């Protein structure tokens, strides 16, 4: 029971980590009015995929995704999961770098970014090496620490709201569904880790549904806070809309006169946990496929990720690569649940047919 709550906490934290930095910019590019329609569409699509994923996983109790692919055959595991690992390395490295840039711009303007990168990498690798139990326990800790800050950010920003900056409109033609940017957007919803944690606990769709509702509400707030403060016309000109929104709040009676600092602290917590989950996934996949101890794999892949994060030259390329990797993530989000579902229903039917004879 506790583990399910822990998994839900990880689910929310990972979504927030991806959601805060690039997600709002993509939404503002996709539509000028009725932003909530895009968010809801994305969330519903995600919910559908989660349902398929869990349904597929239920065909194989006590197995996780890697076991299922290995059951299909070693070649299947290599073909499906090795590219996925490469994508995870890229995602981890770019995610940490993008957060580093934001953290530097909030409160460490004179520190070189490799120093911050090293610290963040160090902690998340350490957590990943300690294994799933540590990740899940620290998820609860970070959750209790981060969520009050999120709520504080949301409530303190209300003083600058102007409701009239947003058009609620309903008149949007659904052409954004075929836009490539929508595909990228889908990549921000990461639920694939669920399948790697299932061998001990059975996931229940109803409970994840609660976490999904929270995530959707948080995504709405991430998109709508800058919109309420600045309006669509201005928001598209900003590099980091949420950060600017936090920076505009002036509460002089408060002990800390910058709300953005809270935002920065919150990002540190989010990125550390997210990356330790990504590294842990890499470790488990590689260990099961290539029979080498997972901690070696984690350290090796994290080293590659660190080098990659270090060599990305500028912010423009960083954002471009990040979009690509989240696009690839969206691709795997569709491929992995569907293959597992199809294989599961197929092999299950085979078993049933066999029994009937």
């Amino acid at each position, binding site marked *: 029971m506790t583990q399910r709550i822990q998994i839900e906490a990880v689910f929310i934290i990972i979504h927030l980590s991806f959601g805060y930095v690039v997600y709002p910019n993509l939404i503002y590019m996709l539509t000028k009015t009725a932003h909530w329609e895009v968010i809801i569409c994305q969330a519903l699509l995600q919910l559908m995929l989660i349902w398929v994923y869990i349904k597929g996983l239920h065909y194989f109790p006590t197995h996780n995704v890697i076991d299922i692919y290995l059951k299909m055959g070693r070649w299947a595991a290599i073909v499906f999961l090795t590219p996925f690992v490469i994508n995870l390395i890229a995602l981890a490295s770019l995610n940490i770098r993008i957060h580093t840039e934001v953290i530097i711009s909030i409160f460490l303007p004179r520190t070189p970014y490799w120093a911050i990168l090293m610290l963040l990498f160090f902690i998340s690798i350490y957590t990943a090496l300690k294994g799933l139990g540590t990740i899940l326990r620290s998820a609860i800790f970070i959750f209790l620490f981060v969520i009050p800050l999120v709520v504080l950010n949301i409530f303190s920003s209300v003083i600058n709201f102007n409701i009239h900056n947003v058009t*609620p409109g309903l*008149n949007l033609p659904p052409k954004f569904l075929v836009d490539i940017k929508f595909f990228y957007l889908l990549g921000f919803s990461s639920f694939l880790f669920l399948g790697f944690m299932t061998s001990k606990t059975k996931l229940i769709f109803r409970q994840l549904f609660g976490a999904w509702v929270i995530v959707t509400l948080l995504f709405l707030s991430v998109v709508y806070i800058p919109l309420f403060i*600045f309006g669509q016309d201005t928001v598209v000109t900003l590099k980091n809309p949420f950060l600017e929104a936090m*920076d*505009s709040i002036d509460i*002089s009676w408060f002990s800390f006169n910058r709300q953005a600092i809270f935002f920065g602290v919150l990002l540190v917590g989010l990125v550390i946990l997210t990356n330790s989950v990504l590294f842990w996934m890499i470790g488990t996949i590689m260990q099961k496929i290539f029979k080498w101890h997972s901690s070696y794999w984690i350290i090796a892949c994290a080293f590659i990720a660190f080098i990659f994060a270090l060599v990305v030259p500028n912010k423009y390329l960083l954002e471009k690569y990040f979009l690509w990797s989240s696009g690839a993530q969206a691709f795997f989000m569709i491929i992995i649940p569907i293959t597992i579902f199809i294989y599961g229903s197929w092999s299950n039917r085979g078993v049933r047919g066999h029994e009937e004879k």
Partner: protein
Amino acid sequence: MKKNRLFKLSIVCMTIILLSGCWDIKDINKRTIPLVLGISKEQGGQYKVTLQIPVLKNESQVSKVVTGKGESITSALGKIRTNSENAVDYTQIRLIVVQNNLAHNQKELSAIVKFLMGSEEIPSRSLIAITDENVEDVLSSINDKLGVHASSIYDFFNKGADWAPEIFSTPVWEVYRSLFSSTKDIAVPVIRSGKNTVLIFEGSDILKKGELMDRFRPEEIQLIRVLQNKNEKGKIESLGFASIMVSNSSIRLTPSLKNNKPSLSSNLNIKINVLERNDGVTNKKIIEELERVIEKRFFQVLKRMQESHADIFGFGQEFQQFISYNELKNWRDEYFPELKVNFEVEVNME
């Protein structure tokens, strides 16, 4: 036993790693923290940046004024940093004063605002003001006044609710927003140095996408604040035969659109206290006179705004539901001049 020693050693190592994080930090007593930033442009096209920095040690002087010149604002700020004996920390700037030759030039002003917004050091929540005088004189005048604090220029804009409701305080991010907004313009306060007080509030400049449209006197600005749904509480109004103080106000706007002609009915509710009155003046007379004065003032302001196509009230915001997003871009030129406002004031005695 051996494991325990290893553990202690690793803790010592961690402290060394974490403590080295302070290697590029400058102590707070070795920093110079300016509160007010003045920007002006010289005859030769060079930017001049003036900083007002509180002095902590010297008793006879409350602040010092430092200037730097350069091809751009960044280079001027950089020069101050080079010549300063301490590290200059721009993150605590609370007020930015722009001289009128820059502020009244659309291109220059929008460049400055974009720079201030993009700058990671200068906070975007710092307030902005315009002055007709030389910026340096305004900032240095504080030292001539007796018994004032170094932060008094900033405090001027933050008297708190009820104290001086006509002063507009406009942060940088709001000016930045107005550069792109298609339905709302912005008023930026105009100040000059006073004889006995540090500053004198002269009114507000109305900027439309960074372009100067008009200047309003303090009492007209007051009304604009009310219509933007900010409270008018504390305002003292003299009607000749009586003086009153506004204790509360609220406004309700109901927009409607017929045949592409916008119209707006607005109900302003004001609660007043009578402070003094001449003999024989009834409550009814005070109420009627006040309603007449406010309505007259409103229609004067509206007429001026409609002529210059600048929507300082933000009425266009109310029409977000009625006009499509793309059409709203033409709000100022096509819809706003046609806008009919049914303005009603209701005054209540407390």
